[in-house]
């Protein structure tokens, strides 16, 4: 029995029970409670005998997938029970101190969302169009993606950008006016980033030149942009709507072949130039932020500005340009509200999307692909409310309107866990 006699000579080879942190059952309880509630609402209480129809294909696809109809109550019950099983698994994982992967909340959410959908459209004549649900989600996610990327660019460099809302709004305004005057939606798309960049320029002027608290400047800028655009809207745009505020709509471009793939095609490849631009920006930033010289310096300035300074990187200059670049990206996102929809500019038409974009950035852990995923989640919540509103559901519309915001709060509070913001975020760099 030499193993027993072996002396614990080195630290680390110490054998014995180590004290561990108390197990937290908060998450498993949360999962189980929500799943149980869903089981009750969607799987047990509804009357039986109703059916739910889902449609998948659109007309132009290579081949058609038939709509399918399922018995509502049984399907919802089945989905909810699966979610309950996942909750049980999280209890087991917590008890044995195992970490659960990101797949678990994802699968859990999909199960419950389908249960909700099955219940919500039960007994309706209309089929639930899954493809257009996704298509709309992507579309509604566009300003969130651009906004989140804007936040990411400035925060990675150490400047907190609360002014995303204002940048979106300024972008929407200028895009509408320029597109109307020139009668070109594309020129509107080019003008939008300029407006966003100008808002960012104000942000860095105060935050860096005058070392004002970045959050306060950001909030003030949001109010300022609302004020200016509303004023101009009332005094100028309202009276000359035809000449100044009726932008043409950005045309939808169907990518040949790709757009005819069932489900994927209509969702991803029957979109406007703004959406294709978004794909490019996400991919380029994902590569450049983490692999390029520019990205390394950007992150260095946001993590440890003094270290960056001592190797000859101009900290404040880097922050200024990247925040302005971020503002331009947000401004581009602002074009979504007007030219991408062919809508006239309206007062405060961004409706808090800039703040949700900020949440998407945090949920996406300051990475472009994460921001994209988070923005899609929020876009889905937003679109779900629209689609269910059209079909007509047992849920009051006011509650449906809350969905995107509730999802935002839960996502940021619950799913993120411990995130690590850039270390020097919000701290002015003064030698």
């Amino acid at each position, binding site marked *: 029995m030499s193993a027993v006699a072996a002396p614990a*000579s*080195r*630290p*680390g080879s*110490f054998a014995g029970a*180590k*004290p*561990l*942190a*108390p197990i937290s059952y908060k998450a498993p309880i949360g999962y189980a409670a929500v799943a149980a509630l869903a089981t009750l609402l969607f799987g047990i209480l509804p009357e039986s005998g109703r059916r739910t129809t889902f449609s998948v294909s659109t007309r132009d696809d290579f081949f058609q997938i038939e709509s399918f109809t399922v018995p509502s109550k049984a399907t919802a019950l089945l989905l909810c029970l699966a979610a309950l099983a996942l909750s049980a698994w999280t209890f087991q994982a917590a008890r044995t101190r195992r970490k659960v992967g990101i797949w678990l909340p994802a699968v859990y959410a999909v199960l419950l969302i389908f249960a909700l959908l099955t219940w919500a459209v039960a007994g309706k004549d209309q089929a639930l169009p899954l493809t257009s649900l996704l298509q709309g989600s992507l579309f509604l996610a566009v300003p969130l993606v651009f906004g989140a990327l804007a936040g990411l660019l400035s925060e990675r460099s150490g400047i907190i950008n609360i002014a995303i809302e204002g940048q979106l709004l300024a972008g929407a305004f200028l895009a509408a006016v320029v597109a109307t005057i020139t009668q070109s939606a594309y020129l509107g798309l080019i003008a939008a980033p300029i407006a966003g960049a100008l808002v960012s320029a104000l942000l860095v002027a105060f935050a860096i030149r005058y070392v004002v608290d970045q959050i306060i400047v950001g909030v003030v800028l949001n109010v300022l942009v609302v004020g200016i655009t509303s004023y101009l809207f009332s005094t100028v745009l309202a009276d000359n709507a035809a000449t100044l505020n009726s932008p043409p709509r950005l045309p939808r471009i169907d990518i040949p072949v790709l757009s005819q793939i069932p489900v994927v095609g209509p969702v991803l490849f029957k979109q406007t130039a703004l959406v294709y631009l978004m794909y490019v920006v996400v991919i380029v930033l994902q*590569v*450049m932020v983490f*692999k*390029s*010289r*520019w990205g*390394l*310096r950007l*992150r*260095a300035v946001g*993590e*440890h500005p*003094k*270290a*960056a*300074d*001592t*190797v*000859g*990187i*101009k900290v404040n200059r880097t922050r200024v340009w990247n925040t302005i670049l971020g503002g331009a990206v947000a401004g581009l996102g602002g074009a979504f509200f007007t030219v991408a929809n062919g809508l006239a500019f309206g007062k405060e038409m961004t409706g808090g999307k800039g703040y949700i974009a900020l949440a998407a950035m945090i949920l996406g852990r300051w990475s472009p692909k994460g921001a994209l995923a988070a923005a899609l989640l929020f876009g889905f919540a937003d679109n779900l409310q629209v689609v269910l509103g059209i079909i007509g559901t047992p849920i009051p519309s006011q509650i449906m309107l809350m969905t995107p915001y509730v999802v935002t709060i839960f996502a940021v509070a619950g799913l993120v866990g*411990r995130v*690590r913001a850039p*270390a020097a975020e919000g701290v002015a760099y003064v*030698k």
Partner: protein
Amino acid sequence: MKLELRGITKRFGALVANDHIDLVVEPGEVHALLGENGAGKSTLMNVLYGFYDPDDGQILVDGVPVEFAGPGDAMAAGIGMVHQHFMLVPVFTVAENVVLGYEPVKGGGLIDLAEARRRVKEISDRFGFDVDPDALVEDLPVGAQQRVEIIKALSRDAKVLILDEPTAVLTPQETDELIAIMRQLKAAGTSIVFITHKLREVRAVADRITVIRRGKVVGAARPDSSETELASLMVGRSVSLGVERAPAQPGAVALQVRGLSVLDEAGVLQVDDVSFDVARGEIVAIAGVQGNGQTELTEVILGLEPAVAGSVVLDGTELIGRSVKDVLLAGVGYVPEDRSADGVVADFSVAENLVLDLFDQAPFARGISLDLAAIQENAERRAVEFDVRTQSVSDAVSTLSGGNQQKVVLAREMSRPLRLFIASQPTRGVDVGSIEFVHKRVVQERDSGTPVIIVSTELDEVLALADRIVVMYRGRIVGTVPGGTDRDVLGLMMAGVPQAEAEAQAATHHTVLGEADIEASEEESK
């Protein structure tokens, strides 16, 4: 490369941090810049490194005047600096940190990581550093981080390397490795400017010594000057190094720590099953390299952090689970490690800072109001008693020097009847004159019968004060040894080597500084 500073002056408002400083660093020499904290050494080096603009004076490289608009220019001129607080981005890899600012790129502005790794490897191999280019800097021990800083400087072809207080965070063995590296660099022709306030190290490695006091060069010294000579030159008056103290008269055991464990937020054990006793009238020093659980240990005793297991019993009362206020009122005096963050409220006056813990008790409070007269009277008495040098006790504590701020903290914590006194890094950032005072007061507290715990990363301090030494490594107690134990043994234990093994190793192989000590004591005995 020959480096020359002529008449460098740097002011911050009314404060003259550098006053017409002249300095010549010859090629291939180790030039020590010796001075107390706040003497202006780091300011001077930041001027030399292009980080600050000098208000007056000239920098000459090989006899040619140069001007540095920023650190980039200084690096281009062949000057590299290893800062006291490492200038490394914790979430970057070693290779990324080394190439930051002059990155090798492939097409499209993408970093050529293979080339970056090669640069790290090349220097790492040349000097026998064992550094993985792909390791995250935050995962490396401080000694390795320092080597990354050196690689960073050398990879930019530094001909003059400035090391700012490089040994502050190292164990004696790591210091030894650093000294070996310095000698190797010197042999390769690199000049080194070695900034420190540690006399023993200066004597061990310097070729020439320049002493700075209050922003001025006050003299040059030879490395064979005695420590006392160097110290008096540095402080400006004769100082006694080391505290005179009678042997401890330990009484009954007052504090019993048993099986104490603390987790950090990430669930990592910071204090791991720690048990020790402290008797009345004895000083127990907790030695260890920064970040080995000492901070958490003191914080859990005070009630600032929860313990996951174990008990802390002071005179028969359990302290774990009680609020900080209860623990303070139970007679625990606590000098925190980070004075400016936890010790004082910088914008409050000296008088207010002196009653931060007692402001709501008689005699400083009457009902819901403060008794300002009593607070004032208390402050004036304490300021005299603890030699706090200030114009007025109504001055904000932030206007005081580090040493005087520490005396304010000490005065506050010692003004209650104590059953236990804990001081973390009691002399960090404190001038030599005040160190003497602080140490005397600590010994006085012990002699009055209070059990005392000193947490210090400075071996000098540990050896000067401790009656017993508890060495911590990665949250565990490596061993408990008597005061006055050999430095090399302590150093090895601070690196996690168990006591018996450490003693055996130290007996066969002395560190450079250890040898210097032995030589010095032999000379004395002659």
